[in-house]
């Protein structure tokens, strides 16, 4: 089901079946061009499939934005080892709830995406790693997978093409770090979710030390449309170097929060005002996070003229990230926001790298003290110093993810830290607001 009304400004490619009766069933899928992209791919050479994905300018939708076609081309197809397709459905970046609606409303689109990826790299088995909290999605996926086996779209000699593919769901059990690709693979192998040193990258030594394609749910979900309508048509939906659409989660202080499919390059202002219905209670925006809590925070002035794509956000020294947009109004306490974000990273740091393990906890303690009115002037610089000393000093990006928003908040909202000095009560404390 859908939890918010769609917007007329959406470009519905991945979400084209949302809202149809029984959109998750294989019958609906087959009646709406479902599995036709795989049929097409089955008649193509692997390198032709990868070329089509390269033409589409599809970039990884989990947050890193790595070109998908290039990632697939790194898999040594001639390796004698089995190859695997792994789906990252461990959606846990704060602000992000898009993979949930993709799986809930159209699980067969994801299954077809994995089939095409399997065909492209000569993989014959896939695992969908779903965060433990999304149990109902595992049930939806298991049902969809069973339907696909029953109708001959999974299993041996799929639809007479000679291609075999098995697909399994695998539940996580509560760990943000397992959304990081190498930690996910450790977890899939029944271990603690700690990152692996790279190289070798998963394309060469991934699941069970075999060549592996590992992408986000949304990335796989884009693949059927790319094969069906052509890579060029998908690319044309976006802007140069960023093809297609992005499932965008509007969260925080907007009137119409929700998950919307917007073409890449969509203007931020129009997204907030027209798709999101503007800032609630007629207030003004204070801060903007483009794609999950790991991204540097932007001020309202900085997002003037910005568009939702990889380059526009990089120019502003932030990131498009996962598509989890977090919008904060002018009554938000940025010290409290920084504290809550840091509490999260301190809780989720796996402890493998000391700068992250210690840094996140130190920062949490300082920010807790600060927000309670016990901060000193030297603490403000200390927060920035500790954060900068975490950057680039960890095996995986979690340390950076904790440091980047913190550095940006201290730099851009320093006056709010000063407002909390000398035991002054937080100027933004309020009663619960329900709208």
């Amino acid at each position, binding site marked *: 089901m859908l*939890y*918010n009304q769609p917007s007329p400004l959406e470009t519905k490619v991945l979400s084209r079946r949302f809202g149809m009766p029984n959109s998750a069933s294989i019958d609906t899928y087959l009646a709406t061009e479902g599995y036709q992209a795989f049929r097409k791919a089955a008649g193509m050479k692997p390198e032709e499939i990868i070329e089509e994905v390269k033409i589409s300018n599809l970039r990884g939708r989990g947050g890193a934005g790595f070109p998908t076609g290039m990632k697939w081309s790194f898999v040594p197809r001639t390796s004698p080892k*089995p190859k695997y397709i792994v789906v990252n459905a461990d*959606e*846990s*970046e*704060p*602000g*992000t*709830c898009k*993979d*949930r609606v993709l799986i809930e409303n159209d699980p067969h689109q994801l299954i077809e995406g994995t089939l095409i990826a399997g065909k492209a790299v000569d993989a014959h*088995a896939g*695992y969908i790693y779903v*965060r*433990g*909290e*999304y*149990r*109902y999605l595992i049930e939806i996926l298991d049902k969809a997978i069973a339907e696909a086996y029953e109708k001959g779209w999974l299993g041996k000699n799929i639809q007479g093409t000679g291609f075999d593919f098995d697909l*399994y769901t*695998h*539940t*996580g*059990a*509560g*760990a*943000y770090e397992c959304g990081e690709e190498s930690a996910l693979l450790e*977890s899939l*192998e*029944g*271990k*603690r*979710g700690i990152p692996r040193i790279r190289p070798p990258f998963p394309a060469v030594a991934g699941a*069970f030390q075999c060549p592996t394609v590992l992408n986000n749910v949304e990335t796989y979900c884009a693949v059927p449309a790319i094969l069906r309508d052509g890579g060029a048509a998908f690319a044309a939906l976006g802007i140069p170097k960023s093809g297609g659409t992005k499932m965008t*989660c509007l*969260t*925080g*202080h907007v009137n119409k*929060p*929700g*998950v919307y499919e917007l073409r890449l390059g969509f203007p931020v202002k129009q997204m907030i005002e027209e798709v999101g219905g503007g800032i609630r209670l007629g207030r003004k925006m204070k801060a903007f996070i483009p794609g999950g*809590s790991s991204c540097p925070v932007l001020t309202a002035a900085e997002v003037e003229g910005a568009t939702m794509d990889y380059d526009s956000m990089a120019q502003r020294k932030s990131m498009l990230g996962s598509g*989890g947009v*977090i*919008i*904060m109004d002018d009554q*938000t306490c940025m010290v*409290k*926001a920084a504290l*809550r*974000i840091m509490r*999260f990273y301190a*809780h*989720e740091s*796996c402890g493998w790298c000391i700068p992250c393990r210690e840094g996140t906890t130190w920062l949490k303690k300082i920010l807790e003290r600060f927000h309670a009115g016990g901060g000193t002037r030297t603490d403000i610089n200390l927060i920035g110093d500790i954060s900068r000393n975490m950057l680039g000093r960890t095996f995986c990006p979690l340390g950076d993810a904790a440091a980047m928003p913190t550095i940006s908040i201290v730099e851009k909202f320093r006056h709010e830290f000063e407002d909390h000095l000398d035991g002054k009560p937080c100027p933004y404390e309020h*009663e*619960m*607001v*329900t709208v």
Partner: protein
Amino acid sequence: MTFSPQLEARFAKLLTSYPAGRQRSAMIPMLLYAQDELGHITDELVEEVARRVGVTPLQVNEVLSYYSMLHRKPLGKYHVQVCTNISCLLHDGDKLYEHACKKLGIGHKGVTADGQISLEEVECMGACSWAPAIQVNYDFHHFVTPEQLDQLLDGLRKT
């Protein structure tokens, strides 16, 4: 140990889902699915899962202590999880959590005296656009107001 036929079927499927010699992959899913049936992870369960996937109980304990959804102590029949992470915080999820604490008279990871309800302040659960959100066991509740939370908790107390 004996489990329900449904859980045994689930285990059997899990143990054949991974490449030969990689049965350890089934460990975390087995623990979580078994916890759903037993309420929490007992020493006996640790030993049973270790035996079935071919590792030592120590290795199972080492892994399970990492995952926040795997619990070594009993939870309430209804485990109420309130998200207070950033997108929920912006909709006063922290105040909703405090409200739940007062209403139930328990704190983070506490269980009511009758064992009916447990409470946990949790990290982002993927309901950010429909904040503030809570989960009761595996069921999501979106746009939760304090009044709705009261009603929900009152209902859970009775059943």
